[in-house]
């Protein structure tokens, strides 16, 4: 099992060791799938406490990057560190300290909201007394207290997303990874999710790394964005700076198109499109 020291560090929340190291740092990170290079020579630095957006068209390598950073996928070469821990060699250390909300629907529809939270509180080994308190707090915070004992399959898309965020914050992760957090949500639900993410950061000081191809979302939420194209970062900066660089009242949409060109169409694979639509249908 893992050493007692790291257990204590993970339990006390944001992790003292995290303050020195950047939240995420990758060096020449690469991932291949057969002949396809999904992530190519990626160098990324996410400072602690930031809300960082990974932008790019479908197939740009955003989800693959997130999967490597969350230890789901091993890098082909290069390295990635989260809070100073190597994702390949110290994956368990990383897992104790991060939260993850996949693009797909990840709350279990055949359990209630409360049960979804309970199971994850137990997986993260939060002790009984603390567990009850944190679950109640999470339900209140996300406005789900009234729906706690309802089966999640009866939830709306926005409620499910809020539950997933609540689930991912139970163990007070120092870094939260979100893959397309608002895809398929209606405008009201999207804004609610954004508000909750900002509140989370304020309350717990978590670093947030999210992927999106929604420019409004990036503009509203992210302090720094990296635009990815064909597995590489092609632009990096605050949304405002990127717009200024292009000049002439450019929007973030313009910036996106400028750096990724026609990739909107060529990058998307059938599988990605199918997944987006499926997620959208479930949430909508």
């Amino acid at each position, binding site marked *: 099992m893992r050493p007692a020291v790291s257990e204590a560090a993970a339990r006390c929340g944001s992790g003292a060791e995290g303050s020195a190291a950047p939240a995420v740092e990758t060096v020449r990170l690469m991932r291949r799938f057969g002949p396809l290079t999904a992530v190519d020579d990626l160098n990324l630095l996410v400072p602690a406490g930031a809300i960082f957006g990974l932008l790019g068209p479908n197939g740009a390598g955003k989800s693959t990057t997130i999967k490597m950073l969350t*230890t*789901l996928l091993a890098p082909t070469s290069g390295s990635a560190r989260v809070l100073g821990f190597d994702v390949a060699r110290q994956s368990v250390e990383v897992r104790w300290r991060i939260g993850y*909300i996949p693009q797909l629907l990840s*709350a279990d529809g055949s*359990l209630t909201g409360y049960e979804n939270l309970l*199971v*994850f509180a137990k997986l993260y*080994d939060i002790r009984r007394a603390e567990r009850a308190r944190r679950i109640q707090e999470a339900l209140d915070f996300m406005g789900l207290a009234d729906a706690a004992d309802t089966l999640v399959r009866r939830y709306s898309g926005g409620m499910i997303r809020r539950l997933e965020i609540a689930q991912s914050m139970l163990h007070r992760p120092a870094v939260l990874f979100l893959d397309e957090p608002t895809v398929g949500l209606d405008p009201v639900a999207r804004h609610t999710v954004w508000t909750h993410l900002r509140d989370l950061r304020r309350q717990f000081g978590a670093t947030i790394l999210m992927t999106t191809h929604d420019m409004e979302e990036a503009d509203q939420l992210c302090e720094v964005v990296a635009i990815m194209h064909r597995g590489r970062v092609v632009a990096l900066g605050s949304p405002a700076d990127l717009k200024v660089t292009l000049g002439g009242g450019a929007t973030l949409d313009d910036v996106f198109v400028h750096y990724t060109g026609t990739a909107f169409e060529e990058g998307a694979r059938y599988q990605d499109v199918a997944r987006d639509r499926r997620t959208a249908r479930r949430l909508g």
Partner: protein
Amino acid sequence: MFVFLRQTLAVAEAEVRKLRHDPMELLTRAIQPLLWLVVFGRVFGRLREIPTGQLSYLDFMAPGILAQSVLFIAIFYGISVIWERDLGILHKFLVSPASRVALVSGKALSAGVRAMSQAMIIYAVAALMKIHLRLSVGAVLGVLASIALGAAIFSTFSLAVACVVKTRERFMGIGQVLTMPLFFASNAIYPLAMMPAWLRGLAAANPLTYQVDALRELMIDGGRSLFGLPLDFAVDAIVLVALIGLGARLYPKIIT
């Protein structure tokens, strides 16, 4: 170690809570084994050609049908794993600090609990059919342990297959191909002594055979285990440990 156990129990608890929300599923699962007992058992029981020792054919086959019903449920367990993968639920479990062994063991444990409910239904019908059941506490506990072990084995096997094939369509095909050979290459509905040598060889390598052998002694008044209970349980326990090791290795691959 205690963290490992708590995480295993958390995974199992999730599954058991799901069952509580939808208990109908368990009832529908019981229909098939009942048909085997009531129709197949009755008809073949009249044959009196099958050498079942001092047991009647119905007494002989009842443990086999119980084991079979556990097998049939457990072998399709992988479908729910693929379903969870397609939804995205599995991703979050894999990002949690729980070890892969704990995740797989939790699933196996929940399959065991699920299978025990089958036993209750089959016992009720068997009693109505005047099958000679052993009803001592020790015997019943033994039966439950044997069922849980069998369910854990075949559900973990199923999970490992699911991690390799990854889609429901392919899994359904393979599941169908696996169940009948596992069932027929065992002592569930006919004794080993009746089998041609090649089939007896296969049956000896089939964990279901050892489960049925144990059940025959534990469940039926006058039933005898051929290999002895310690060997029956030891073989299946070793198989389970090996399969959990394999499942834990394959589990992370399901999402790639």
